[in-house]
């Protein structure tokens, strides 16, 4: 019996030990797996964190704040960038009323403003948002050069006639055109007393190169065939706190640009900031065709004491 029991015990022992071993092994394995998984997981988190802290990007938010965002935390929006820019472009910069002053006594037809503008807005050499005209007010008077762009009227006839709300005025005074909405009826061209608008009759400059690019309403690029284009007071540059393309390109100090609410305008060449009200008052400033009641946002200083003699344009 004893032997038997002993035997049984002996027989049972290995089975018992194997179960215990089995359980023990499972326990060990489990602990191992758990530890391994934990290590892997924490490693993974660490790696992710490392990547997340590795590269940060500085971005401009829609409300014009500069923020630093981690490259991993950035998610591409499903929203169309064109649509985003269109929404942003409908709202002006809060609390601003842009105004331009053109000093005719300083213009010598260098045409750098035109070149900078055409470059920024993808225009052909014969297409002008900004042009310099040769003027002579009366037979006996001295001729002068006059840069002329969109006057960004406070009572814009072009906006009133647009049947599809493609051209619109913003709170900060800029009259913009949404080429995605424009149907090319050219009512606005007919309504504008300043002939500020152009029509894309033929395929725009470098249309193939820019095909498929997101449309930026504050820059009017890429230009669209069969739609209107015009001066935008460089709405994109204003947003960044920079002077418009034409203003900063002028070598002769013709242009002043600034905010009427602040009563300050900055010269594009010397970067000198002066009081708008004083500048207008002291120099006998005037506007183009004010009798039409369009209330332009561009002022002209008369071509008195010209700095450069009049030389007729060669082109």
């Amino acid at each position, binding site marked *: 019996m004893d032997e038997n029991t002993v035997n049984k015990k002996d027989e049972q022992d290995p089975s018992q030990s194997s179960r215990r071993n089995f359980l023990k092994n499972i326990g060990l394995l489990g602990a191992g797996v758990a530890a391994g998984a934990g290590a892997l997981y924490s490693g993974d988190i660490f790696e992710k964190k490392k990547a997340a802290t590795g590269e940060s990007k500085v971005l401009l938010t829609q409300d014009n704040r500069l923020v630093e965002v981690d490259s991993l935390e950035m998610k591409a929006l499903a929203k169309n960038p064109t649509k985003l820019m269109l929404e942003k472009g409908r709202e002006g910069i809060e609390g601003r009323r842009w105004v331009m002053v053109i000093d005719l006594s300083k213009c010598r037809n260098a045409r750098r403003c035109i070149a900078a503008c055409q470059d920024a807005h993808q225009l052909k050499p014969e297409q002008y948002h900004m042009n310099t005209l040769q003027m002579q007010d009366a037979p006996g008077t001295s001729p002068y050069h006059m840069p002329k762009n969109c006057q960004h009227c406070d009572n814009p006839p072009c906006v009133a006639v647009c049947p599809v709300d493609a051209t619109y005025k913003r709170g900060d005074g800029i009259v913009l055109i949404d080429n995605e909405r424009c149907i090319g009826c050219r009512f606005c061209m007919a309504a504008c007393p300043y002939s500020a608008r152009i029509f894309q009759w033929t395929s725009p400059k470098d249309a193939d190169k820019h095909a498929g690019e997101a449309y930026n309403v504050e820059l009017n690029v890429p230009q669209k065939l069969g739609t209107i284009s015009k001066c935008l007071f460089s709405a994109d540059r204003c947003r960044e706190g920079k002077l418009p393309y034409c203003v900063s390109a002028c070598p002769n100090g013709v242009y002043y640009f600034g905010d009427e609410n*602040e009563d*300050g305008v900055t010269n594009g060449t010397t970067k000198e*900031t002066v009081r708008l009200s004083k500048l207008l008052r002291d120099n006998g400033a005037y506007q183009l065709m004010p009798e039409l009641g369009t209330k332009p946002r561009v002022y002209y200083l008369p071509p008195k004491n010209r700095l450069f003699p009049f030389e007729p344009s060669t082109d």
Partner: protein
Amino acid sequence: MKRLFYIILLVVISSLRVEAQNPGWIVPDDQKAKICLVKFTPDMLKQGEALYMKNCQSCHGIPTKKNFAAISPTPGDLSEPKVGTQKDGELFFRITTGKAPMPEFRNILTEDERWSVISFLRSFHKGYFQPDPEKMAGSIGKRIKLAMTYDTVKKKIMIKAIELTKEGPQPAKGAEIIVFVQRYFGNMQLTDTKRTSENGFAGFDWPQDLPGDKNGNVILGARVNDPAGKMQEAVVKDTLAIGVPTNKPALTDTRAMWSTRDKAPVWMILTYTLAVIVVWYFIIFIILSVLDMRKIKQA
């Protein structure tokens, strides 16, 4: 006698020719002596490079590449020994004042920014050693500190200039001060420059009609105007609620013909609605009349 006259004439003419060949971009001696008051650092060099690429590269090209613009007078490559042998003060003066067609960078780059551009250029000049600012400190003289307050009674902005000397701070006399107001695209100078009095004060009339933000806040700055470089550039900036509170509505806030539907003039909305009502009234009137006629016919 006649020979002597000819000799004198020749000398005069030759000296005139020298004058003509050197079409005077003459840097005054006191300007030549100006030096940067800090040691050039790699950060400065980096900033200088970025500024150079933005402001200078279009004419002067990339240094050592000799790809400067083909215009007259030729801008030249700024890495050349002709530039390298000039003193820091000379380069600083030329950048500051410009000479047509080169623009003046007085209002475009701050003094610090102009020095960082020079530090970038100096990295191409072999054998250049920066004059040690600390050793030179004695000869460049004054270190000025500015403080700004607003005098509500006199309606003046009071600038106090304090000179930091070895014996301690003392009021700086005769320092030329510029006060400017920050605007969206740049700083606007307030009246003319003024010199500080015996006790270091300079008062600037504050224009009572200058707009501030919606709370009347304006950002003001003051600095020492010191083209001779005898004083270290000192700047003070402060926000004061002394402007005219300006909170003009957006131009789209008023009702106008050109505006969107919800901002259309009231008379237009009324007339249009009335017209629609009148038209529909007559349509319904006619339909009811026709129905009435049918009823009469049936009866």
